[in-house]
C-alpha cells in the first residue's frame, strides 16, 4: 500500500505496480525498494579502474524482470553504488540511476540521500530524489496501517 498525496488516499499497490512510475516520476517502486537486483540477477565483474568496479547483472532464468541486463558501477573504497544502467533486451540503455549523495548513519552503513533517475528514451526527462530528513531505528508496525499512512506516524 502507498499514500497517494494528490488523492489524499492510501491505494493498494498491485505486485505489477512495482514497475509503475512513483507519483508520475521517472522512479519506479522497484527502484525505491532496491531488492530486485539481489533477487533476480547474477552478477559478473566486467571492468574496473582504480576507484570503481563495474558489475554486469544478467537476469536469472525466468526472473520476473523485463530488463536484458543491468550494469552497476560500484565505488571500491566504500563499496557503494554510483550508477545503475538498465538495458532492454536488445542492448539499448533505457534508464539510468545516478547516486550522488550518501549519509553514514552507522560505521560502514550508508543511506542514499541524493539520486537522479534519467529516462534515456525521452531526452531531458529526469527525476531527482533527495532525502532531506531521516531517522534511523525500528519503525513500529502500526506505522504501516492504512490510517497511519493517511494521518502520518510519529514515533
Amino acid at each position, binding site marked *: 500500500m502507498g499514500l497517494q498525496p494528490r488523492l489524499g488516499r492510501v491505494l493498494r499497490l*498491485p*505486485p*505489477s505496480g512495482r*514497475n*509503475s512510475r512513483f507519483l508520475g516520476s521517472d522512479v519506479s517502486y522497484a527502484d525505491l525498494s532496491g531488492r530486485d537486483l539481489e533477487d533476480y540477477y547474477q552478477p559478473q565483474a566486467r571492468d574496473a579502474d582504480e576507484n570503481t568496479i563495474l558489475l554486469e547483472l544478467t*537476469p536469472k*532464468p*525466468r*526472473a*520476473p*524482470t*523485463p*530488463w*536484458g541486463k543491468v550494469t552497476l558501477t560500484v565505488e571500491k573504497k566504500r563499496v557503494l553504488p554510483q550508477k545503475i544502467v*538498465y538495458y*532492454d*533486451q*536488445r542492448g539499448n540503455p*533505457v534508464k539510468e540511476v545516478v547516486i550522488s549523495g550518501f549519509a553514514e548513519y552507522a560505521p560502514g552503513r550508508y543511506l542514499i540521500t541524493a539520486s537522479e533517475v534519467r529516462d534515456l*528514451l525521452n531526452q531531458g526527462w529526469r527525476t531527482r530524489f533527495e532525502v532531506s530528513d531521516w531517522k534511523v531505528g525500528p519503525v513500529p508496525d502500526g506505522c504501516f496501517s492504512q490510517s497511519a499512512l493517511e494521518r502520518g506516524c510519529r514515533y
Partner: protein
Amino acid sequence: MKGATAMTTARLAWRNVWRHRQRTYLLAAVVAYASVATIFYWSMIDGYKLSVLEAHARYVLAPVTVARTAWFADPDPENGMSDTDQALAALTSAGSPPYAPRLRFAGLLTSPYLSETAFLRGVDPVAEAAVSRVPARIGKGRWLAAPGEVVLGYKLAERLDVRLGERLVVSTAALAGPRSLGLEVVGLVHARVSTVDDFGVYLHIDDARYLTGLTGATHLAVNAPLGHEQTLARRLAKELPAGLTAKPVWDLVGPIKTDVEAGKKLSLPIGLLLALFAALAVTSTLIVSVLERTREFGVILALGMDNASLGWMIVLEAAFATAVGWLLGLLLGYGLIYYTSTHNVLGPFFQLSGEVWSEAGLTEEFYTHLSPLYAFYSLITVIVSALAAFFFPALRARRLQAAAALRWE
C-alpha cells in the same frame, strides 16, 4: 375447342411454352435469377451467423465450456476447479469428445517500455490443438512447447514492443498471492481475429498454475462439430454433478449473440424487399409477354376456345415457364452456395473491408450455409410473383373479345 378438358388445356399450354422459346427462356432466366438471388442471400445471412460462431468457438472461446457454475458468474481462478476428475468422468460418459484444460486469469504484462493488463490463458500445448485453431495460426516463431514460454497476439506484441526470444514479465495476484514470472516470447499469433491478435496471451498451464495457485483448471474446452454445440452441452450437463455445468459457445458470446440475432431480424425486410423486386421482374416479363400475344389469343377465341379455358391456358403457360426457371435457379443457386460453403472465396473479399471485419469477431474465412429451406424461400418468391402475374393475364383473358383482340396493334 369449346369444352376442352383440363388435360387438353395443359397440353396446349405446354406446347405453347416451347413454341415461344425466346419468351420462355427470358421468363425462365428472370425466375432463375430471382431464385439464385434468394438462395444466395439467405445462405449468406446464415453463413454470417455460423462464421461468427465458428470464430468464437475456434479462436476466442470453445465449442463447449465445462466449468463450475460459480465460474460462469465470476470467471476468477478462485471459482475454478482444483481438480478436474469429476468433469473428466462426465466427458467419458458423454462419449469422450476431445477436450483441453484451460486456466484463465487476469494479469499484467510488463516489457522494458510499458505494461498492459490482459486476460491470460494457461493451456496444455498439445491438447489445445484439438479444440482451438490458435496453435495453427502462428505467424512468427512457434506454438508453446514447455513451461517458461509465452505466445502473444502479434498486435499486442507490437504495442508492448517485445520480439521473439525476448522476456516478458507476467504478474498476477490470485489464490497464491502476488506472483510474477519472466517468460520467453516464442511465438506471435496472426489469427486475423481481433480478440486474438490484439489481446491473446497463451502460456503453459503449469506456469498459470504456479502464478495463480489453482492446481486444476478454470474450465475445460470441449470440441464439438459446428452446429452441434448445444446438443453436446445438454448431453454433458446431464452427466455433470451439481455445481458443474456445460455451456455452448452461443451462450457465452454475450452481446455478439444479440447483435447477430438482431442482424438476422433486420435481414428479413431486406429479404422481403429482394423477393418483391424479383416478383416485379417476373410479373413485368409475363405481362409484356401476354400483351404481345393479344392477337394470337384473339385467333384462339375465334377458333372456339372459351375465355375461361384461355385464361387457364395462359396461367398454365406461365406456371410451366416459371417452374422451369425455378428448377434452373435451384440448380444454379445450390451449385453456387455449395461452392462458397466449401471454398473460402468470400472471406478474402470481405477482408478488404479491413479491421471492421475482424472486429466483428470474424476470421478471414467465410463460408455460406447450405439448407433445404432456401429452396422453400425461393419457391415463395416465385409463387408470389407468379400469382401476381397470373392474376393480370387471367383477368385480361376473361374480358378479351375475339374481334377486339384481332384488331390489337
